[in-house]
């Protein structure tokens, strides 16, 4: 049982660490942004509290020290330096380790941790306040400013709070222990005796507390009851305001009249008794219970299962439709139609659940660029556009490795050293732009750097040297850049630590191909390099065109289709060359019967489907076009992986199978060499 909680904690903490990392990267750009500092502090605080609760004591202790540093930063007693940020990054890695391993008792490890903590403490102990402390308290104060602050704390427990054994009085005791406190109890909600339920709690409290502790220490008191209580902690001012006459009389009055204390009221009273009190300070308002749960965490296998079940449902629903049509009973037809509507909605919903924004993966790349550029002494900005674009989680999973490689390449090979950039008249700081956007049924991802670019001639020569192409081969610019994706091609002369670990762009291409994506490269010398990935939005459902070739039915993804032509509008050119003339233009075509090696039965009535292939159009000759069809694509399984022309299968309404054609692979396999166009 406890293990389950621990796992949950680790999972949630990883989110916190993630958030921490994100905030830290932002902070690096804007070191004085209080909101970000606050966010970092909060994330650390949650880690600390949770760690202690679930037995990650070392994590908790470590985070405590880190938190102390940021508490100083937050209170403007320490300014954010590169050292602090770097140390915090290191600390985050350390925290990740600790989350993975839990508490350790290995002596070396412990010594390590102690050393780390010492480094962290150096920051919090250094007594030279780097930033000027905020001049908040006015000198003309009648209340002695002894470094303490006065807070108004409102505690509104749920009615059910007593049922899980929480005694709200202990909370009040804890607050009393922190300093001088005055409590006002509100009991106007207590019902008449006949309606009174002894296991419910009807009271709420307001506490005016003077303490030297920070807001977070006060929050710690409520750490276990956060969910059962509505809690607000508001700062009224510095110094012990309880000593002020106006304040204490207000509190007494509130108690008598059962009238809630408000922050504004108290501040006004405090200001009246303390002329010149800086009001700015009181703006800070920390509310613990400010957001409702807007999302829940679900195991991803459950979602996979849901999507699978919905796919089955869609298939069966199609069968039902077919049956209802044949049956002709209007009542059954109406039912089938309703079920169709419902299952469509259900399907759309289920698929949208499995989509996640790219952003979730991008954080680690930002981190990667930062670390790598520091390591290589380069100055690089990583800019993200379209991080909110959503993709199937299975696709995103497959995307990490290729992107990691692409971005590494951009940092290592693409962007030049700062002095070299200046020499070439560029800004010393390089930029890597990560851009994602929708394009039809696909998602395009571009990784663009403004580095030195790649010389096509260099690629060509290298390919010739490696024996990949013949020295006399005529290649278009695009085709030259394609060479980079051949196996056995790596443009960097020496293997560096950063990239070139034996995996080349061919692996990237293969990985992207596995998720039915395409990758291409373009580059201009001196201006930079762009890698473009074209990805399907989801793996399991496509809009397709149902066609017939010989006796079989096939599905061609509609996203790839440009136009459909009846054969009589088409005139074949020199057929030995496999070219057709349509509207005064020539297109290469592939006879599917030929490439599938089937009999040709109905010569003369075929139809030609023009599909997009890279930047040209290629015709596919089929026996018959049947119609549009939305379909769930099922994998063919490992035994049929060898053939590449078919990417999956779909079960039709009547239970028969239609195979899904991967037009890109098909054309590539059949034709790419034959139909080279001069350009």
């Amino acid at each position, binding site marked *: 049982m406890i293990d389950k909680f621990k796992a949950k904690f680790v999972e949630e903490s990883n989110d916190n660490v993630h958030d921490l990392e994100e905030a830290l990267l932002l902070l690096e750009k804007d070191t004085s942004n209080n909101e970000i500092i606050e966010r970092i502090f909060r994330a650390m605080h949650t880690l600390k509290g949770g760690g202690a609760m679930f037995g990650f004591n070392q994590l908790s202790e470590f985070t405590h020290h880190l938190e102390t540093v940021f508490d100083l930063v937050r209170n403007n007693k320490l300014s954010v330096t590169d050292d602090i940020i770097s140390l915090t990054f290191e600390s985050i890695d350390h925290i990740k380790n600790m989350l993975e391993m839990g508490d350790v008792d290995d002596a070396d490890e412990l010594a390590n941790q102690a050393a780390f903590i010492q480094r962290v403490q150096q920051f919090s102990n250094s007594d030279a306040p780097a930033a000027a402390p905020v001049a908040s308290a006015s000198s003309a104060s009648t209340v002695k400013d002894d470094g303490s602050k006065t807070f108004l704390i409102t505690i509104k427990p749920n009615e059910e709070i007593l049922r899980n054994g929480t005694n709200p009085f202990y909370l009040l005791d804890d607050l009393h222990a922190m300093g001088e406190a005055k409590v006002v109890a509100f009991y106007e909600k207590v019902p008449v005796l006949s309606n009174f339920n002894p296991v419910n709690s009807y009271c709420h409290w307001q506490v005016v507390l003077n303490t030297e502790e920070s807001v977070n220490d006060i929050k710690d008191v409520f750490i276990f009851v956060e969910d059962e209580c509505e809690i607000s902690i508001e700062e009224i001012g510095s110094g012990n305001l309880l000593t002020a006459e106006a304040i204490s009389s207000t509190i007494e009055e509130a108690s008598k009249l059962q009238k809630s204390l408000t922050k504004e009221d108290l501040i006004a009273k405090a200001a009246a008794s303390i002329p010149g009190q800086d009001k700015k300070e009181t703006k800070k308002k920390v509310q613990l219970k400010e957001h409702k749960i807007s999302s829940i965490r679900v195991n991803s296998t459950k979602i996979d299962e849901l999507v699978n079940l919905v796919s089955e449902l869609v298939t069966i629903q199609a069968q039902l439709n077919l049956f209802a049509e044949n049956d002709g009973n209007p009542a059954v037809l109406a039912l089938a139609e309703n079920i169709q509507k419902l299952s469509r909605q259900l399907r759309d919903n289920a698929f949208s659940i499995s989509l996640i924004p790219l952003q979730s993966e991008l954080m680690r790349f930002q981190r990667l660029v930062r670390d790598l550029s520091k390591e290589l002494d380069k100055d690089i900005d990583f800019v993200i556009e379209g991080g909110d674009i959503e993709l199937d989680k299975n696709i995103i999973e497959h995307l990490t490795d290729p992107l990691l490689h692409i971005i590494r390449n951009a940092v290592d090979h693409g962007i030049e050293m700062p002095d070299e950039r200046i020499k070439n008249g560029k800004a010393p700081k390089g930029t890597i732009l990560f851009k994602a956007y929708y394009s039809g049924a696909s998602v395009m991802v571009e990784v663009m750097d403004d580095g030195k670019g790649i010389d096509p001639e260099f690629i060509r020569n290298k390919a010739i040297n490696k024996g990949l192409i013949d020295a006399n081969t005529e290649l278009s610019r695009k085709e030259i850049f394609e060479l980079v994706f051949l196996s056995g091609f790596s443009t960097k002369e020496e293997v560096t630590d950063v990239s070139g670990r034996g995996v080349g762009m061919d692996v990237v291409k293969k990985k992207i191909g596995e998720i039915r994506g395409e990758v291409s490269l373009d580059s201009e010398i001196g201006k930079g390099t762009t890698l473009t990935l074209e990805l399907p939005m989801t793996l399991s459902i496509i809009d397709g065109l149902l066609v017939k070739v010989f006796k079989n039915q096939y599905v061609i993804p509609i996203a790839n289709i440009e136009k459909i032509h009846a054969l009589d509008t088409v005139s074949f050119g020199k057929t030995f060359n496999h070219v057709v003339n349509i509207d005064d233009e020539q297109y290469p075509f592939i006879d599917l019967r030929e490439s599938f090696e089937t009999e040709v039965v109905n010569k003369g009535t075929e139809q030609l489907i023009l599909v997009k292939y890279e930047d040209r159009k290629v015709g596919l000759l089929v026996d018959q076009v049947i119609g549009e069809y939305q379909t769930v694509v*099922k994998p063919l399984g490992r*035994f049929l992986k060898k*053939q590449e022309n078919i990417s999956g299968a779909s*079960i039709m309404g009547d239970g028969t199978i239609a195979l899904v054609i991967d037009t890109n692979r098909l054309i590539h396999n059949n034709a790419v060499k034959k139909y080279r166009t001069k350009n």
Partner: protein
Amino acid sequence: MKEQMTSIISFLINKEVFAFDTLKVRNILEFDKVTWVPNTKDYLIGVINLHGNIIPIADLRMMMGVENVENGQDTAVIVVSEDDKTDSLLGFVVDGVKEVFDLDESELKESVINGNTGLVHSFTGSLHKNDEFIHIIELSEVVQEIEK
């Protein structure tokens, strides 16, 4: 014998009797329409829809070098899986399924096969029963051959 077998399913191929380990068999189906997949090996005759999953079908008769395979009333598909993953489901077409029976290990002898078994080379053993020799096919080898 690599592992313990408790029972086997025997079937006919070209009038000879062969068998699979029962534990590996998931389903036995009547031979029905198969959707042919282009650009695959000859003996991979296509795919079928089994409870919403796409299962590839291999003609074991063709794999074993039988010429002129004919499909009749008894022709059946034995669906096997080496592990329990849907990904490894695979159907074999045979001339007919005979029976399931328990195996007494002591009855098992080394298989004497004189060459002509096509792509199927590996046998766990043979036994003599009711005047017939039953050869037990080592499934993993056949699966490897298909995956090649």
